[in-house]
């Protein structure tokens, strides 16, 4: 018995930020229902109190993150290394921004549960990065998925919202099943669930043993995780769900599943590729082709479909698909090129998070009082009515386009350099296709900017009160996009 306690204690020290979040989640879930009476009424302003509690928990977790060292520690279920450190920082900061965006997107009655779900998702993201075992990885993945279903439902409980939630729920379960099935193949080949032992088993196995089985496992896991990345052809839920849900949920869905998906792939792909860790992983020819096909299809479909959209949330869904395509290029190249594919992906995730959260935050910044900005018509002439929002939104859109002086430019530049410096024909083709797609993307992003600044306003300019929280989040995102362009090196250096 003391041995078990000792093991729990030593494991717990590895996940201090997550335990902080867990404590907050427990408090929210347990106390929250008691503040709502039986008629379903809550004291006004309750959501603000829960919001501040969530921010407090995230900041404490952030402090614990800063404090903890990130030298390599392996302990059965979890491991701590540079990747975990980076992913944690990314998800905690994204969590703070998402809490701010959620601020006026939820009513008082359901606020406790909504914030609890958001914190669970952040926690799940961290645990995906820290997982060192198929079991803990799968649990962490579900810790992201299940609260997402609840959050989608809580955000918008009308018919369209219900439809979006249900679609996401069913398709997500399908994808989880695929991942689990793929993991079971991996377990079948190696007989263990621990990453370290899987790696040892694969390195020391007899020649040609388990070939074919490993590839099936690879394909299943990839297909399952591609759902989270919103890669073609597993992307179909994205436009419908984005359109049917709130700004905060759309912001969450555009970033967090991508972080989770790419981090999980960075863990799993080298395993099924039977090499000793990502550092020496280079996809073999067939998986390269498969990944490249996914990347190209995803980029093109996302960008081409985005051209047709007039609903901005739907457009952003396709844009999120296209960005997944760009990042998949990094995965194709692997870590053999002079500019590593993994570094480029992780850098891109950070810049992409800033721009996409920024867009949704700014779109919802006046949703509390004025009309929510959802379609082309709402953006028309925005610069006359809301000049600050228009300018900040334009910065985020420039960043999505990949224009200097914004962080989005550097993200694309890194991926381009990755693909080009690989030196293979495939790399060059991918780099060129990516540039072509960036050009297509420029059309629909800049069209929105033109709508805001060049078109006359439909309505008379009248002062609209801004909700401070999403406004703050949007400002931080836009300013950080520019600041990151000016000083990118520290972020690049902090990538493991």
């Amino acid at each position: 018995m003391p041995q078990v306690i000792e093991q729990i204690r030593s494991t717990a020290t590895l996940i201090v930020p997550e335990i902080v979040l867990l404590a907050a989640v427990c408090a929210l879930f347990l106390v929250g229902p008691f503040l709502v009476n039986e008629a379903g009424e809550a004291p006004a302003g309750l959501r603000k109190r829960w919001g501040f509690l969530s921010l407090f928990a995230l900041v404490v977790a952030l402090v614990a993150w800063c404090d903890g060292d990130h030298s390599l520690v392996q302990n059965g279920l979890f491991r701590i290394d540079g990747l975990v450190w980076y992913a944690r920082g990314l998800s905690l900061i994204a969590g703070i921004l998402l809490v701010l965006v959620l601020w006026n997107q939820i009513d008082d009655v359901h606020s406790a549960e909504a914030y609890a779900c958001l914190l669970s998702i952040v926690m799940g993201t961290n645990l995906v990065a820290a997982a060192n075992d198929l079991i803990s990885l799968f649990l962490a993945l579900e810790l992201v998925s299940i609260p997402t279903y609840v959050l989608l439902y809580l955000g918008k409980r009308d018919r369209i919202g219900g439809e979006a939630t249900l679609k996401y729920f069913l398709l997500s379960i399908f994808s989880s099943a695929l991942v689990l099935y793929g993991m079971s193949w991996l377990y079948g080949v190696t007989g263990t669930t621990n990453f370290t032992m899987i790696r040892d088993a694969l390195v020391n196995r007899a020649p040609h043993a388990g070939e074919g089985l490993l590839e099936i496992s690879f394909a299943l896991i990839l297909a399952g995780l591609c759902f989270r990345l919103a890669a073609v052809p597993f992307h179909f839920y994205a436009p419908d769900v984005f359109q049917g849900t709130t700004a905060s949920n759309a912001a969450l869905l555009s970033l967090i599943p991508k972080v989770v998906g790419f981090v999980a792939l960075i863990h799993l792909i080298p395993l099924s590729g039977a090499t000793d860790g990502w550092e020496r992983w280079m996809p073999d020819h067939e998986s390269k082709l498969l990944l490249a096909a996914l990347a190209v299809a995803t980029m093109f479909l996302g960008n081409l479909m985005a051209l047709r959209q007039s609903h901005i949330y739907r457009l952003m869904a396709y844009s999120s698909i296209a960005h997944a395509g760009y990042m998949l290029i990094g995965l194709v190249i692997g870590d053999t090129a002079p500019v590593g594919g993994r570094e480029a992906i992780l850098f891109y995730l950070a810049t992409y998070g800033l721009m996409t959260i920024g867009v949704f935050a700014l779109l919802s910044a006046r949703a509390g009082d004025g009309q929510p900005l959802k379609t082309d018509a709402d953006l028309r002439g925005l610069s006359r009515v809301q000049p600050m929002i228009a300018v900040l939104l334009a910065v985020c859109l420039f960043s999505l386009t990949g224009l200097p002086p914004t962080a989005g430019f550097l993200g694309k530049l890194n991926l381009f350099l990755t693909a080009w410096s690989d030196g293979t024909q495939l790399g060059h083709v991918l780099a060129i296709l990516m540039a072509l797609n960036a050009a297509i993307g420029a059309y629909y992003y800049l069209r929105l900017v033109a709508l805001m600044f060049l078109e006359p306003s439909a309505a008379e300019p009248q002062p609209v009160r801004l909700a401070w929280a999403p406004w703050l989040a949007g400002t931080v995102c836009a300013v950080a996009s520019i600041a990151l362009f000016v000083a990118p090196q520290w972020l690049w250096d902090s990538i493991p």
Partner: protein
Amino acid sequence: MPENIQHLVMWLIPLAPLAAAIVTALLGPKGMREKSHLPCWFGLAVAVVCAYVLLFSIVPGGFGEHESQAVVAPGYQWIDVGGLNVRVELRADAMTAIMLSMVTAVSLLVAVFAAGYMHGDPGYARFFACFSLFVFSMCMLVLSSSFLLLFVFWEGVGLCSYLLIGFWFQKPSAAAAAKKAFVVNRIGDFGFLIGIFLIWTTFRSVDFATVLGEPQRLAELAAAQPGRITAICLLLLLGAMGKSAQFPLHVWLPDAMEGPTPVSALIHAATMVTAGVYVVARCTPLFVHSPTAQVVVCCIGGVTALIAALIALTQDDLKRVLAYSTVSQLGYMFMALGAGTLAASDAAPALATTAAMFHLYTHAFFKALLFLAAGSVMHAMGDVIDMKRFGGLRRALPITHWTFLAGAAALAGVPLLSGFWSKDEILGALYSAGSSESPYHGYYYAVFAIAVFIAFLTAFYTFRAYFKTFWGEERFPAEAGHHPHEAPPVMAWPLRVLAVCALFIGGLVALSGSFAGYLHHTIGLPHAEEPGLRWGLVFVSVAVVVLGIGLAWQMYVAAPRMPSKLAAAFRPLYAASLNKLYFDEIFWAILVAPLRGLAWLAGWFDRVVIDSIVDGLALVPRWLSAVPVVFQNGRLPSYALVMWAGLIVCLALAVRLFASY
């Protein structure tokens, strides 16, 4: 001096004017108004002090030793990914220090003058914000450590000149002049940029330290690809021609007179036009490997100088005379830069570059002086600058008169004044290039002859302007009122200081030999003993100067009717010179008009052909995206089905690997 203090000093030189620009831009229009010049003065004063500290610290252990490194002040590493490494850092060597000491000092004096000249202008704060930004760009240009950074601030200088030339943008002529300056400069920049690309592909680097500082490697590359080096030099030259107003890109400079007079002084003396000369001088190690490029530099300088001097002969606008004299003197510097051929001697490049930089240095002082004095005349005459409408001002404006005379004498090359020494060195460099074994020595002789002739023309037109303005019958235009007022102290003191510099700086530096002794510490310039005065050349140049001044006296003071008789006798020649040799008209006929026609044609082509193609192409994505729309039908089973199909495809692709074993 401790290293970190030296780095701080280097950074302060550009950053102090930048801070001044920001403060003025933010606080000026609302807060400081009439005191907007103070941040600019303060920032430039800091820059001047730092520049002189740098001047005396950059070459350690006296002038005699010949080992000194360029000092590199690390700044900011923007990005370092793979092979891409972009740094913002400052680099200073002897040439940088000399340039900075001139740029900052002249700018400060002009800024002091401008506070008086621009007094009461509604855009007072805007003027000083742009002014500070201009000086910042120029300092950064000179301090750049690589061609890339140089290019950034090269454009920055172009932008600031646009803002300042078009300062009174309400005037259509000012707006047009600003646009002309910018567009003509863009032509040069285009070549410059391609030159930088070529440098990158040839040297795999754009750092000065790598490109210019490794003579061994440079010589090998030059031997392997002589054509490449010539191409690089000529493209860099194209950029320099734009900035330094060399034929045929000189047309913007005279029009730049539309800006406020202190801006003219700044552009013509200290900041903008010197950039081109600086770049060619900086790239001397490259140019010596291409005798062809060198002779091109020399000939362009000669042609420019001759044309500008001929035009200057008949202009009635005082500022235009000075503007053409600037173009002509810049031509002089280019002649010198082109004369540094290795065929003359191993030391020739160093001597020629020294001569050009020396002339740049002295010219900056006396040309700033002349422009400011002309500004003072304008100030007194109620903004009239046409020499036909005033005269005999020497009693009304005594300070302006004396300082203008000092500047004019220096420009004309009166013996023992600044211009005399530097001009003499240029003539010497040209003469040695002409008498060398170079296959182009005939060209050098021709340019030498032109240079002597231009020395005569310079003396003549400078004193023509002087006599017409300050001698003869006293006349004031109506705009000036009854009592023209002499410049207030804030304008008079910069004139006095500059006059002293114009008179003595050349002699002091030339006689002590310190300029060459200092400049040869620049990376890539070999040490060279100064040849001393060549008495034959001195005699010739003194003779032509005396001749020129005497002729001007004869024509405009002794026999004032003579010019009009001469003009009548040689009407076509006179008209040609008066109309700037019809350059604007020729450009219109051979460039602008055909280009407009081409533009119209291109516009038509664009509207009818290209637009149809683009619209057609833009339809393609829409057609393409019509296919996935079929699947994006909102029905859950359909989504799941396509996902399942996708999974099958993934499996098939992955297992193909298995099949291939």
